[in-house]
C-alpha cells in the first residue's frame, strides 16, 4: 500500500467505526462532536489505528501558565487546545450565563464542551489561534482557566446545601473559602509543587464528591453520636407500615440499632454507630444525621502517585471546615521541601509514616480522630505524661490496691 492508500484505508475504517458509535440507544459523543469544529479525523484515525493520535503540543498564551492543554497529532496535521475552566461551586448556571459560555465557545473555540471533567472543571475545546484573546473574554464572563499543572487543581464539592437535605455543612462555601484563601489563591498560577494538589468537599458520609479517594485533602460532613431521631415521626412511619424495624436493624452495618419497645421501637447505640447513613436514607426524615455536626478531614488520597492508589486517611474531626488551613499549609510545605517530582502528598505521607508526620503538624487541629477499634492500639510502652494524667492513673490504681488489700 502506498502512504496514500494507507491513509485512505484508515480513513474508511475510521468512518465505519464512527458510524457504529452513532448507532445505539444512548446519546453519542460522536454525534455531538460532529456538530462542532473539533478535528474528528484525529479521533477516527486513532480508533482505526488503535492508538491515541495525540502528542503534547505547545501554545502561546501570554503570562498564563495553568488552565489549558495544547495537543498536536502524531502526523502533525491537526492541533487542538482546551481550556479547563472553573465552575462556580455547585455548577449551577442560569440559562443566561450558560448561553454566554456557549457563545464564547462558538466564537473562540470549537463549539465542543465536556460539561464537567473528573476533577471538576468545564473543558472547552478552543481555537488555538484565538486562545490568547479568549483568556480575556472568559475573564469578562467572571471565571477563568485553571486546573492543570503542578499546583492546586480545581477543588470540588457536592451540591450540598443548595439541593441536598443531608448536607452537614456548606460545601459550596467551603470550596469558595479554600479557593480564595490567599496562600492558595496566590499559587493558582505557579507550577512549583512536586505534583498536583486537590481538595474535595462532601456534605455527608455519602461522599458524593468522592473526597475519600480522589483528593489529597478531603472534607466529609459527619456528626458525633447517634443519628437524630424524631420519635413521633418514626412511630408514624412504623404505624403506617412505611418502615420496618427489622430492616432498620438488619441494614445497620455496625449493629448499633436494636429493638426497644419503650422508646419508639428502636434504640441506637451512639458508641457503635459508624455513620453509614443506612438508617437515615431509609427512614428520612424520621432519622436524620446527628445534631452535633462535624467535618472529617482526610489526607493522602490519590489514584496513582508513586505508590499506587490510596484511600485518604482520617486526620481529624473538625468543628468547622476552616480549621484545616494551617494543617494543610504545613503538610504542603513539608511535601514541597522534600518530595521528588510526581510524588503526591499521599506518597510523602506513606514514606514518612502517616501518623508520625500528621501528628507532628496537627497541633492546629481539634480532637484527634479515632482509628478503627480493631486491635490497632498503641503498642509503644513509654509515654510522657502530664501531671493531670499521672494523677488520674494514680487515683485509679489506689482503688485497685484498696480492693485487693495492701
Amino acid at each position, binding site marked *: 500500500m502506498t502512504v496514500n492508500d494507507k491513509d485512505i484505508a484508515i480513513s474508511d475504517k475510521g468512518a465505519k467505526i464512527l458510524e457504529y458509535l452513532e448507532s445505539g440507544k444512548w446519546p453519542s*459523543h460522536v454525534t455531538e*462532536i460532529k*456538530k462542532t469544529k473539533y478535528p474528528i479525523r484525529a479521533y477516527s484515525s486513532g480508533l482505526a489505528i488503535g*492508538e491515541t493520535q495525540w502528542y503534547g503540543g505547545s501554545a502561546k498564551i501570554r503570562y498564563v501558565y495553568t488552565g489549558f492543554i495544547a495537543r498536536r497529532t502524531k502526523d502533525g496535521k491537526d492541533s*487542538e487546545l482546551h481550556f479547563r475552566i472553573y465552575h462556580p461551586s455547585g455548577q449551577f448556571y442560569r440559562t443566561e450565563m450558560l448561553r454566554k459560555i456557549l457563545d464564547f465557545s462558538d466564537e473562540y473555540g470549537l463549539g465542543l464542551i*465536556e460539561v464537567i471533567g473528573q476533577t471538576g472543571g468545564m473543558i472547552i475545546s478552543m481555537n488555538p489561534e484565538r486562545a490568547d484573546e479568549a*483568556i480575556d473574554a472568559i475573564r469578562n464572563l467572571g471565571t477563568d482557566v485553571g486546573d492543570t499543572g503542578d499546583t492546586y487543581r480545581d477543588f470540588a464539592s457536592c451540591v450540598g446545601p443548595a439541593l*441536598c437535605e443531608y448536607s452537614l455543612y456548606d460545601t459550596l462555601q467551603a470550596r469558595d473559602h479554600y479557593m480564595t484563601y490567599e496562600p492558595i489563591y496566590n499559587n493558582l498560577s505557579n507550577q512549583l509543587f512536586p505534583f498536583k494538589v486537590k481538595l474535595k468537599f462532601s456534605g455527608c458520609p455519602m461522599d458524593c464528591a468522592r473526597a475519600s479517594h480522589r483528593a489529597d485533602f478531603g472534607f466529609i460532613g459527619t456528626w458525633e453520636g447517634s443519628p437524630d431521631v424524631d420519635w413521633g415521626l418514626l412511630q408514624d412511619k412504623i404505624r403506617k407500615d412505611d418502615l420496618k424495624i427489622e430492616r432498620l436493624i438488619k441494614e445497620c452495618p455496625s449493629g448499633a440499632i436494636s429493638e426497644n419497645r419503650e422508646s419508639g421501637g428502636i434504640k441506637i447505640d451512639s458508641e457503635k454507630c*459508624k455513620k453509614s447513613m443506612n438508617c437515615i436514607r431509609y427512614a428520612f426524615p424520621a432519622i436524620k444525621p446527628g445534631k452535633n455536626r462535624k467535618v472529617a478531614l482526610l489526607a493522602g488520597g490519590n489514584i496513582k502517585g508513586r505508590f499506587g492508589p490510596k*484511600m485518604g486517611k482520617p486526620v481529624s474531626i473538625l468543628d468547622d471546615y476552616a480549621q484545616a488551613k494551617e494543617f494543610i499549609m504545613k503538610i504542603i510545605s513539608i511535601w514541597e521541601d522534600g518530595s521528588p517530582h510526581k510524588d503526591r502528598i499521599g506518597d510523602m505521607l506513606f514514606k514518612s509514616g502517616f501518623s508520625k508526620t500528621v501528628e507532628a503538624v496537627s497541633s492546629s487541629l481539634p480532637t484527634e480522630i479515632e482509628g478503627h477499634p480493631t486491635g490497632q492500639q498503641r503498642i509503644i510502652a513509654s509515654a510522657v505524661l502530664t501531671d493531670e494524667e499521672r494523677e488520674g492513673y494514680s487515683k485509679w490504681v489506689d482503688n485497685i490496691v484498696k480492693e485487693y488489700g495492701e
Partner: protein
Amino acid sequence: MSTNLSERMKKRLPVPYTDSLPEEIKSNLGKWADRKFHGGGIIEHISEKGDHLFTIKVGSPPNARFSSNTLRVFADIEDKFGIGTLRFTRSGNVEFISDSLEKSLLIKNEIEKMGFHAGGWRNSLWSIGSCTAYLSCTTAVADSSSITKVLYDQFGKYFTDEESIPAKLRISVAGCPTACGGLTSDIVVVGHYGDAPSFDPQKIGLCLPRSAKALEVAVPEVVMVCPMKCISAFKKDDDTVGIQINREKCIACGRCKDVCDYITFDTTKIGISILVGGKSSNTGRGQNLAMVLIPWIPISPPNYREVVAVLQKIIDMWKGNAVAGERLADYVRRIGLREFQKALDIPVTRWNNTEFVSSEFGIRQFPVR
C-alpha cells in the same frame, strides 16, 4: 488584554457561588427538609419553608461531551418549563430544575424527543464515567469514550429503570492505568498495554540529557518515575545517554510514557483490566478501592463485545445473589473476591491474586492453604 502582567497571572474566580444561584435556591439554602423520588430521574426537594423544587437528571453522552448546539436547546427547554437554571452534576450528568412535577415530566419528554434519557437515582445505574482518552489524551491506551458508548447502549436499561438492580451501580471507564476516574466505582474498566514498553532509539534522546555527564548529577525523569525501577540510564560510547528497560519487572503502568512520548508499546497486546468492589460512600461496608477481578481481556472495537459480555456477567451474578440494597462493592466484599472469581470461573494468576500491602506487619502468619 490587561497591560499589567502580574494582573494577567491572577485568576478570576467565579465566587461567591451564591451569585450563580437562582432566587428559588438561594432562599432555601441549607433548608431542605425532605425529598421524594418520583422515578425516572426526578427528585422533589421540599424545603422547611414549604417550597418545592424538582430536579430531572439527564444522562450525558460519553465523556460528558456536548456540542454548544445541544446545550443551547437544553437552555431553551429549561427556560420554557423550568426555573431558568441548569446544573452539571459531579458525575457529568445534567440536571434540569423546575417547580412542579408536571413541568418536570414535560422536560423529560422534551429531552427524550432529542434522544436523551432521564434516570439514575437510588437502585439504578447512576452513570458510567469516562475519561477523555482518544479525544485529546496523550497517554490513552484504549478509547474509554467509545467503550462507554457501547456500555451505555447495553446498560442504559439500568439507568432508566427499565430493568431493576439491587442498589446503586457506578461504572468508570479509563483509557489508561492513570484511571482519571479513580478506583472507587463498583466496576472500573481500565485500558492498558498488557506488555512492557520499548522505545524509539533515535527519538528517545529527546527525553534524556544530551551528555552523559549529566548522569553524575541527576537521574533522568523517565528513569526516576518508574515505580519498579525497570529503567536504567547509561553512558554510551559517544558520551550520549542511552537507556535500558528491564521487561521482567515492568508492570506496564505507563508512567514512563507519561513523561516521554517516545516510549512505545506493542499495540497488539492492548487489553483492559476489570476491577470491582470500589465505592466512596460510607454506606454498607464503607469505602473501598476496587480490586483486580481480571487483569486483562482483549478488546474488539467498535463493539467491544468482550467488555460488554463480561460486565453483563458480573451484573447478572450480582443481581442474582445480592441482598436487596446491597451494592456490588459490598456484595463482593461480603463473599470475598476469591469466591466471586471462582463463581465466574476466572483464571487466577499473579495479577489477580491476593496481594500484600506494603506494611501489613502483624497479621496471622500462616496463610498457606
